[in-house]
């Protein structure tokens, strides 16, 4: 196929609450009142009103047939619109343009909108994530209304979403976005236990530290939070906070060169939220507040992040606590030496791990996800930053999302192998509340051959868990 093609693009993103608008029937009333946030601001108010009006209509219409859940998406010939109602009366709406290919048949070009290449389940997830990320830092919309006022809410939305929308790489989202998963670091029992104890020491020493999370590079080793909360924190850390800091560290060269080096004397640790300089109180800086929701009710915490030698420790400190410089000093003094030796062990363990042989197109790629702790593994993605840096073609990834969607019909223990027209084999299986996907590129393989291969992979990759037999 020749001609010029276009990827999925963000057309608009808006949040409204009909309750703020004029009452039913009052058509004179100012419809704009309903709109709390609208992107792009370049759309004139007329357009904004129309768009909101349409959504209201759709919501109302769909409800008459009482569907199992509120309306989630609208398909038109050129656009896709996704809906999310996070709180009563609040609707968050995302509008995307379908990807385009222009085909040239006997020198007549025809534009084709690839409806199926924009997958609802992927972008619904993206939409929800946008809201949850906001909620992580500002709490619910309603919360702001109750504690502050409408203008504050609008302001916060403006600040947050305008930045957030710039940051998401719309066209690179895929099944991983649906999972919103967390990567755990494989580690030996002893080192893990040492980390556990380390965390316990701290939490018992500073009892206003309610929870702690421990990461190495972008992998979690210990999380005291419920997965749902950790999920967003993890997105924030790996997506925003850490990348920024890794830069500065690379210049410092934070990884211990040779594990034997007596580098304990050096001081590697520093707070990446909190004071930049432990000698000056004024550098305490703005420690972000986060709102966690898992334990039944909303809880407010300071998120203090300490980083040393590619290890990251997050402290969730009771929101009411007043943070003084001395607290940070004390923490630093306690953590830094212990952390160094722990990191040393981790680094040593990791270096011992056999690195999987450099993947050829033939080597099967897989994605694993556990619904219960949100753990995921992927040999398809070379990083977890949605850079579209993947080792298999995008169609197979889409096939996976299709499968994820249809798996709901296959029950608790469903399994599916398909062969695409470009001779990829894609396998999916749900079992014991886990999901496993494999892509194989083997032109002349038979279904039986592939099944065998898949079986082997499941046994090797999932040996330590219960996975329904093939």
């Amino acid at each position, binding site marked *: 196929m020749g001609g010029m093609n276009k990827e999925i693009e963000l057309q608009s993103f808006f949040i409204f609450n009909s309750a703020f608008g004029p009452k039913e029937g009052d058509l004179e009333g100012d419809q704009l009142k309903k709109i709390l946030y609208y992107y792009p601001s370049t759309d004139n108010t007329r357009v904004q009103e129309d768009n909101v009006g349409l959504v209201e209509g759709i919501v109302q219409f769909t409800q008459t047939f009482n569907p199992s859940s509120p309306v989630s998406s609208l398909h038109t010939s050129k656009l896709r619109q996704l809906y999310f109602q996070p709180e009563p009366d609040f609707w968050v709406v995302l509008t995307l343009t379908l990807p385009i290919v222009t085909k040239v048949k006997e020198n007549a070009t025809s534009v084709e909108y690839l409806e199926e290449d924009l997958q609802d389940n992927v972008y619904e997830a993206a939409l929800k994530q946008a809201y949850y990320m906001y909620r992580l830092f500002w709490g619910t919309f309603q919360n702001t209304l109750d504690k502050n006022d409408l203008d504050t809410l609008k302001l916060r939305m403006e600040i947050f979403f305008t930045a957030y929308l710039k940051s998401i790489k719309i066209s690179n989202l895929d099944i991983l976005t649906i999972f919103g998963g967390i990567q755990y670091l494989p580690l030996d029992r002893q080192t893990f236990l040492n980390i556990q104890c380390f965390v316990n020491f701290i939490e018992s020493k500073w009892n206003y530290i309610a929870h702690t999370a421990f990461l190495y590079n972008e992998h979690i080793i210990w999380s005291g939070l419920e997965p749902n909360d950790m999920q967003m924190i993890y997105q924030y850390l790996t997506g925003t906070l850490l990348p920024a800091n890794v830069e500065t560290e690379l210049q410092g060269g934070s990884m211990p060169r040779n594990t034997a080096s007596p580098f304990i004397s050096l001081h590697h640790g520093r707070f990446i939220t909190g004071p930049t300089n432990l000698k000056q109180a004024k550098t305490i800086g703005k420690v972000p507040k986060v709102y966690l929701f898992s334990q039944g009710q909303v809880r407010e915490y300071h998120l203090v992040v300490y980083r040393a030698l590619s290890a990251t420790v997050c402290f969730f400190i009771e929101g009411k606590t007043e943070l003084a410089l001395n607290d940070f000093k004390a923490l630093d003094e306690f953590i830094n030496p212990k952390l160094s030796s722990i990191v040393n062990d981790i680094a040593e363990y990791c270096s011992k791990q056999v690195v999987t042989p450099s993947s050829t197109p033939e080597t099967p790629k897989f994605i694993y996800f556990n619904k219960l702790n949100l753990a995921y593994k992927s040999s398809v993605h070379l990083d977890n930053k949605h850079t579209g840096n993947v080792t298999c073609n995008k169609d197979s990834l889409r096939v996976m999302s299709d499968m994820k969607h249809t798996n709901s019909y296959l029950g608790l223990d469903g399994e599916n192998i398909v062969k695409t027209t470009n001779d990829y084999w894609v396998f999916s299986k749900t079992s014991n509340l886990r999901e496993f996907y494999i892509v194989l590129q083997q032109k002349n393989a038979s279904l039986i051959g592939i099944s065998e291969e898949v079986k082997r992979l499941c046994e090797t990759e999932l040996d330590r868990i*219960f996975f*329904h037999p093939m």
Partner: protein
Amino acid sequence: MSQDTDSYLELSDDPVRFEPVNQLTNVFFDDTNKDVFTVRSGGVMGVVVKGPSENNKPLNFRMEDRGSVLSIKLSLDRKVLAVQRTNTSIELMNFNGDSLESEYSISCKKNSNILGFIWSNLNELAIVTDHGIELYTVIPDKKSLKQLKSISVTVQWFVWCPKNKIAILASAHGSQLQPVSIKQGCINKLHKVETESGRMALERDVTLATLYNVPAVLILRHQSGPQTAEVHVHTLTGPGLAPVKAHVLKLGLAGRFAINVVDDLILVHHQASRSSQIFDISLPGESDGTVKYHTMVAPRSSFKATSISLPGLVEPQAHDCELYSPNWVVFQPNIVIDAKLGCLWHINLSLLQLCNQINDLSICTQVALKRSNGKPVLLKLLLKTINQNQPPLDKLQEAFNHINFVYRDWVEMELQSQSGSPPNAPFPKKTIPRVLIDQSTMYEEIFQKMEADLSKTERVLVCYLASLAEYGIPAQLNINTLIVSTLVRQNKFTALQQLLQYGVISDMKPLASLLVSLGNMHPSSTQMALDMLARLNASEEIQEILLSEGQILSALKIAKDKADPRKYLTAAQNSGDPTLLHSVLYYFRNHPKFSIVLQNDQRLHTFINEYNDIFSTSEV
């Protein structure tokens, strides 16, 4: 200096009482048999021999007056009495229990002086002279002695250790210390004690002791000037029992000292300060590679006050004994004698008090682990520490590590003895650790008794598990169960998941079933259970779970040929899902093995009928 109340040293409260020294009465102590001899006017007025403890009855006899007694000792079997009155000869008398008979004597080589004599063995008498040692065997019936052996070496004074049968012969004012061992009729020179050349030592500054089953020479070194005194510990651990200077005890004081050993702890009494210091050579200390330097384990402490009752005019009166009195003489290992008072005490150590004075839990644990009565004390201590509202987790972990270090060796030894190691291999009974705290003990004495604070319990348990892991000891079921339930009761399923994920909690069927039972509390627990069972290859249990979850076909897939058609058909029937019943029935129907069963087993026909009713079809 520490108060009496919490003093960890005390004198035995039933001292051996004897007639105090006076013009007429001499008192001798034989540190081989630990006998106290009171000799009235050279024995004419009688001799009383008292054993080390009040309750064995004293011996009484008389001797003829042959001048003043220099030394007097009963043979090991108490059948021969040896008395030295001159420095050239020893007189011997056979003793029948209450009277002496038939004297005979032995004199040493010409122009040499007797420094002393030793009952080195049953009927073996070693006479130490300034020219060496002459070893005789005594033949009471013939009233004669026969020389067995002799060595010649100049001796100025000597010290004898009856336990190890080793004597130190000092010459050149104690700058030359020559250990010799006197055993079964022979005398062996050992390597000299290495000391800075020309450094002299007085007899009273040299102590022979046994530390952790190793003979050791303790030499008190007084320093000139500002420096303070030290005790140099030479252990006979070198080749051929060669003494090795292994430890130096830093006393931090100067003046007169006396040394005792209690339960392998070295006590150094300081007269001037009327206090004692305590050292344990097994503790880590600064080391220069060969020698370890020790400071006292706990703050100095003096003896608990003690009193004896003396006959009064009307009634006996309590008399407070003077502690660290100049009349004190100490004998090994733990004997203190006040001749003026007529008392022999044994020194007792109160471990609990001692531990209370050691702030560092880790050191405390090491000390307690080495003591014969350490177990209850250590447990008490741990419990106390844990029950503080903010227990020092890092110290606790160190303590656990010391405990498990001992525990690990024990476990390994058990394994060896079970795995039938070479039959002739000496079963290491004697290496049973003095204090063994295994998981069951920890469970019953600590985890069961500690105050109910879930998050604390969790943290302490994790510490303990970490320590067990450190020493490669698999955790027992009850410990695993406890951590699981502790987490669950806090609703910390995420934590539980991670502990399982990283293999902290061992895989055991009972744990799996516990997890299953929690399925209603949190979905993850069923997942964890299944994973665990999968790791244990417990397909039976897995099937049961799947069945109970209504995943009948999955279960069937696992059961393969071992499935019980009746069970599965019943499950399918109860599910009320016709398709499921069909699937199960057809699976058996199409299965080479089961199809026959299906036909022959009458009881299964009810299912077939049921099926036919549902689908009103003639098939199957």
